[in-house]
């Protein structure tokens, strides 16, 4: 499996404050990787380290097999970057922006450019400074997708956009997905749940986990145990149980390491008097809320992090 992005122990400190600590992830080629986390979790810092806008304090990153610290010039022919707070050349019209970008890219696809202009309904003659936030993002997308980058990195691309624009951008993005790797950050889980293939969760500069979406969905289950007799929670709760709670006849928790039948058997053994043990799959949002509320990182000290 080729890696589009690979980081090892990536750390960024500002004075004594660590914006990002010891971050190690692998993004395989062709993936749609969503880096999620609350505002200030370190997502933008991570992306700027990948793009060589910031230099890491320690650790390293490789982007399309190039050391991120070496990224410059022609390397960006293969990398597209769009950020919510990017300073665009506001004095340009959309057409001028596209005209200006075109000669930089040997693989600029004029037909695709036209298609994107139509698809995103871009007003070519209007200056960027006169465009709405959504339109500006669309223009940035068009100027990025038109050269068919091998890797698209997006920093909060859908933040503050109305649902229609968001859907248009996602649609445009997914059209390119078969031929590219997409790495995006978001604090809105609903945005990415429908299309991300991989997900990583950052909290206060630390990566809590990074894995395939399907594995994550399979791993997290909301478990409800209904009892015939009132029962207290066991004294030793497994580390993989998040937010355990018990009422008179019901015990509920989120199992972060649900293993299907094996887990069902373990639970049956733990609660022989259980009348019913049910498990339901969880939305991404519910998973993150469970993790965030539980306050446990359940992270490993180094290397690829997964919830055990």
């Amino acid at each position: 499996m080729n890696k589009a992005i690979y980081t090892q122990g990536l750390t960024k400190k500002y004075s004594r404050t660590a914006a990002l600590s010891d971050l190690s992830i692998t993004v395989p080629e062709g993936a749609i990787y969503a880096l999620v986390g609350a505002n200030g979790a370190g997502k933008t810092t991570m992306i700027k380290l990948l793009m060589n806008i910031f230099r890491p304090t320690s650790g390293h990153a490789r982007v399309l097999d190039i050391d991120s610290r070496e990224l410059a010039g022609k390397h960006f022919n293969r990398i597209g970057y769009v950020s919510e707070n990017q300073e665009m050349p506001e004095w340009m019209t959309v057409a001028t922006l596209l005209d200006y970008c075109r000669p930089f890219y040997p693989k600029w696809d004029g037909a695709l450019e036209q298609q994107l202009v139509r698809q995103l309904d871009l007003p070519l003659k209007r200056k960027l400074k006169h465009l709405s936030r959504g339109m500006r993002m669309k223009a940035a997308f068009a100027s990025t997708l038109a050269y068919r980058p091998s890797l698209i990195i997006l920093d909060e691309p859908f933040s503050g956009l109305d649902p229609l624009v968001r859907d248009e951008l996602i649609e445009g993005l997914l059209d390119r997905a078969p031929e590219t790797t997409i790495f995006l950050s978001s604090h809105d889980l609903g945005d990415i749940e429908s299309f991300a293939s991989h997900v990583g969760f950052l909290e206060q500069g630390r990566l809590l986990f990074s894995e395939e979406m399907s594995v994550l969905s399979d791993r997290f289950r909301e478990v409800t145990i209904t009892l015939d007799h009132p029962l207290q929670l066991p004294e030793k709760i497994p580390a993989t149980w998040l937010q355990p709670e018990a009422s008179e006849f019901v015990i509920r928790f989120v199992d972060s390491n649900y293993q299907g039948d094996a887990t069902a058997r373990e639970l049956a053994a733990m609660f022989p008097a259980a009348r019913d043990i049910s498990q339901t799959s969880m939305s991404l949002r519910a998973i993150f809320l469970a993790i965030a509320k539980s306050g446990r990182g359940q992270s490993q000290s180094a290397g690829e992090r997964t919830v055990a």
Partner: protein
Amino acid sequence: MKQIIHIFAKDSRHFWPEIVVSLAAMAAFTWTYPHHWTRNNLRGGLYLSTSIDWELSASILTLLVPVSWWLLITRVVHGESLVGDRQFWLTRPYEWKKLLGAKVLFLLVYLYLPLVIVKLVLLVQAGFHPLSYIPGLLFSLLLLTALLVMPLLAVATVTSNFARMALTAVGIILCLVAILALSAVRGTSVSIPYSDRLSIPLTVCVCVAAITLQYAARRLWLSRLLLIGFPVATFVLGLVSPGQAMMERDYPSITAKQGTPIQFALLEDSIHQVMVGAGRNEKEVGVSVPLEAYGVADGYMMMPTHVRVSIEAANGIRWTSPWQEMYNARYLPGPQESSVNFEMKRSIFESVRAMPVILHLTFTFTQLRAGRSRRVPMPASDFPVADFGICSPQLDWGGSQQIIGVACRSALRQPRLTYVEALWSDDTCGSTATEPNNGVQGAGWTGNLDDDPAEFGISSVWTTGLDLSNSLRDTGEKGRPQKPRYLCPGTPLTFTQYDPVRQIQSDSTIRDFHFPR
């Protein structure tokens, strides 16, 4: 090259207002500046009311043109700002060498090319053949690059917008003022010999390093550190540098064999007296010692550059001043009145003023030898002086068409140091061109000792009014005690160029010197 042209074209489109402003300022400068040497505007060193506007306009434009360049440089660099982490261009396939190349091309096209045209036009208008001054023109562009463009470019690369750039400029000016104030308080001369020669190439190197660091790697704080650290380090070095050792190296003491090229004696009579006045602050006093200089060999001139004063008192008190610069003193053969001025601590002055002291004066001199003299009969209109420039008679501002002075212009730099002599006539000149048999000797120095083919400036033409002595005569009348003297057509003007021979250090000792009580 394709990317360079592409970025250049974008900048040309985007910054057309700044380009227009800069070109307009340069065009206006080219139009107004020649009035500096238009004969009818300059009369006896005074300007008629009709010409004040031209003079003022030229002065304003001399300021406006660099300001427009500042705007141009700052805006074009900030077009792809090197400060910040949100710029669009950071994640586009810009190659830093090509980006820098595009900015350089922009400056070549919109700053240097128009400036070269301005300089050529001014040379032609002043009567000089521009092709004869190509090396000088190139040197003047080099100076402009080193002293103005590079520092502006460097500061622009470490600031994110024009407002911050302007704030930085204000900060730099305040620092310079503080440095000057500090050096004044310390009482030391900051101008170490040859510091200019070193500081200009060093400034260029530091600016190039900062610009390259920023474009190649955007190492903002390292670049800022370089740009701030260099002037601070230069100043600190200036303060702690071994001034005496540098003086000894650059101005070696003369040996007994070499003989004394100049001597000084204290002038003490009813007219000439040692004067003591206020110093630059309450703790200092200023002392002026009248001297007579003599002993300069025929065909030579001694030009003092620095002086250091030492005092030895009978009560054991010794005091030595720092090296202080001397301006405008030039000693020719024959006795010549002069004075040496210095400042000393009031406490030391008070403790020695009542007793005789030994006064040691150590001068550094540049010794010059008279070169070729050119004698020109005063014409009625513009006249060229070889190796000097083109001169114009200045007419009496009363409208009498009498010549009361001479103004000269030279290409790219002031003339080399030249002694100009003429004979003034007390009376107005007749209508026929006659050389007066009798007249009053007028003389003056003009020019400088620089070897460089050009001086720093926007204009390629330097104008100088020859400041000849005895240009006014006493009339004894009340209300109008002085009247101008006249240079009659045909009267000889002599231009003698002086060339440096050597730099030396020479001591003079005045024993039994008394400060005034």
